[in-house]
């Protein structure tokens, strides 16, 4: 019986393909793209200022609200944070990924990859609150900085306008540190995978042809690892762009996009504005991907 079923499917590869692809396509098409589409529709509605009810008519009024100075500032602040986090993560991740891919023994490699991904096993919320405690005025980091007699520089850093605050746990600097930590694995793994695919013989060939280590890095390793860096940056950039937990926990009164969306759809009940705000990160990411493609990041895929 089982044999007959196997044979039946073996002779109909197209049916097998259809059976395999239907669930994911249904999911992607209906649940994922469908909700995105609902979002898009809602962003073209507007709320009645008196009744607070949604008027289901096409209008660009809601989009106009996004370009008020206050909202523009929210976009700039969030994109700036996302860019800073992405660059910092790339700089930290690259040497580590390079070591894992090219130098670590197979055993050590397994352990290092586990070590990199193990934080993802625990709740993101728990880790954010843990960081809040670490960064708090009475927290372990302050204690350590005190021990090193570095509280002077720390106070100076926290007094800087724009990025400072009353303590690390309530400042953009603290948010930056937590974002950097939270998204780091998403940067390390793609870079490591990209480097893993660079054959050792290419590095030997470069050296053989007279390139010093730094030249080999610039002309061979970096261009070939670039798609990995871009892949990682897509994660770090978009995840920072949409996050609302970290700004809510560690931020001050200055909103980030995620926070704004959260409050518009919640207490304010302004679903159209929340939807329009959300289209912001979506648009930024589309532009980001187009630039990445122009730079040739996907050529090697």
């Amino acid at each position, binding site marked *: 019986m089982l044999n007959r079923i196997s044979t039946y499917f073996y002779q109909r590869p197209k049916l097998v393909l259809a059976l395999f692809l239907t669930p994911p396509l249904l999911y992607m098409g209906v649940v994922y793209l469908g909700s995105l589409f609902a979002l898009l529709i809602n962003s073209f509605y507007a709320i009645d200022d008196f009744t607070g009810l949604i008027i289901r008519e096409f209008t660009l009024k809601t989009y106009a609200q996004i370009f008020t100075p206050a909202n523009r500032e929210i976009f700039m602040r969030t994109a700036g944070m996302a860019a800073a986090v992405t660059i910092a993560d790339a700089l930290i991740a690259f040497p580590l990924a390079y070591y894992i891919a090219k130098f670590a023994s197979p055993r050590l490699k397994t352990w290092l990859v586990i070590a990199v991904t193990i934080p993802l096993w625990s709740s993101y919320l728990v880790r954010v609150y843990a960081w809040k405690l670490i960064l708090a005025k009475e927290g372990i980091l302050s204690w350590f900085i005190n021990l090193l007699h570095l509280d002077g520089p720390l106070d100076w850093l926290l007094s800087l306008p724009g990025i400072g605050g009353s303590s690390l746990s309530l400042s953009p600097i603290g948010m930056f540190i937590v974002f950097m930590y939270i998204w780091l694995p998403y940067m390390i793994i793609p870079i490591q995978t990209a480097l893993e695919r660079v054959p050792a013989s290419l590095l*030997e*060939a*470069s050296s*053989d*042809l007279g390139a*010093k280590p730094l030249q080999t890095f610039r002309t061979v390793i970096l261009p*070939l690892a670039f798609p990995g860096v871009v892949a990682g940056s897509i994660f770090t950039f978009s995840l920072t762009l949409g996050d609302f937990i970290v700004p809510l926990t560690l931020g001050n009164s200055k909103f980030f996009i995620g926070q704004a969306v959260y409050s518009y759809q919640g207490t304010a009940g302004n679903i159209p504005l929340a939807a329009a705000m959300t289209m912001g990160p979506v648009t930024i990411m589309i532009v980001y991907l187009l630039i990445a493609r122009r730079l040739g990041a996907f050529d090697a895929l």
Partner: protein
Amino acid sequence: MTNNSSTTAVRFNKVSRYFGEVKAVDQVDLDIQDGEFFSMLGPSGSGKTTCLRMIAGFDRPTAGSIHLYGQDVSNLPPYERNVNTVFQDYALFPHMNVGENIAYGLMVKKVSKEERAKRVDEMLELVQLAGYAGRKPSQLSGGQRQRVALARALINHPKVLLLDEPLGALDLKLRQQMQVELKAIQKRVGITFIFVTHDQEEAITMSDRIAVFSQGGIEQVGSPLEIYEKPASAFVAGFVGTSNLISGEVARRLAGSENTFSLRPEKIHLGATLEASPKDVISVDGVVRDVIYLGLYTRYLVEIEGGIDLVVVEQNLKTTSMDVLSAKGRKVKLSWHRDHINPLGG
């Protein structure tokens, strides 16, 4: 240097390379002459590739020293050695086109753009790929990649060119064509070529001299003729071509000594009498055990007195496959010239 007629290009002086407990290369002494086409031949794991990698600088000797034209290079990094390598997998840079790949060595040495373009064109001409500069390596066939890898190495005018089984990935026809071409290019540029291969036919076809490697050491160094006609050990006799190895009681009866000797299958005559004075001919009776028809020639397995099987090869000059196959089970007389007995050392 004592030898006036030639310069030593590469000298191995008691070179060893251990990987942990494994002796990949063990106390190797070797001189390779300037302008020579030199092959390192051996099975995988025999140490030939490790030797090549130590000349290139990818590996360093655990003990001993390596000299390039008199200079001790044992601890120099690859980018400070005037040698270039053609890799087994070609190792072309996938993000650069053919022209950029070939110009790479000049680019890192900051040679001007005009000079680079001129020399790339010369090289493309040499390897018969004119007009291919703009292609990506992924758009080339295996044979073309091979040529690009060769051009990329030769453009730097290395003193020694190292080739690590460069023909291994090509099909038979292309491989034979590249063998001839490589040899011609070597003659033209006059550079010392060191060629690593496990293919004995390839080594014999192209080389001026061959070093046969086994288990981290060199078994024999010599011209293709010497290696084939006068193998120094049972390993060489068996690895380069086919050999009958005869020892003990049978050896004493046939050659007068119990020491092992080797005898090539094509030197043994089947049935027909040898035209030589009888005192130079050795004859023995046998029974044909097996016949393998191979088109150009036929391989016979003949059991001789004393229970030893000899491989005999005869060209199919007049015989048809029918004649050949009916020989199975027949009683035959084998004979060979005394000079073709090759006593092995030890």
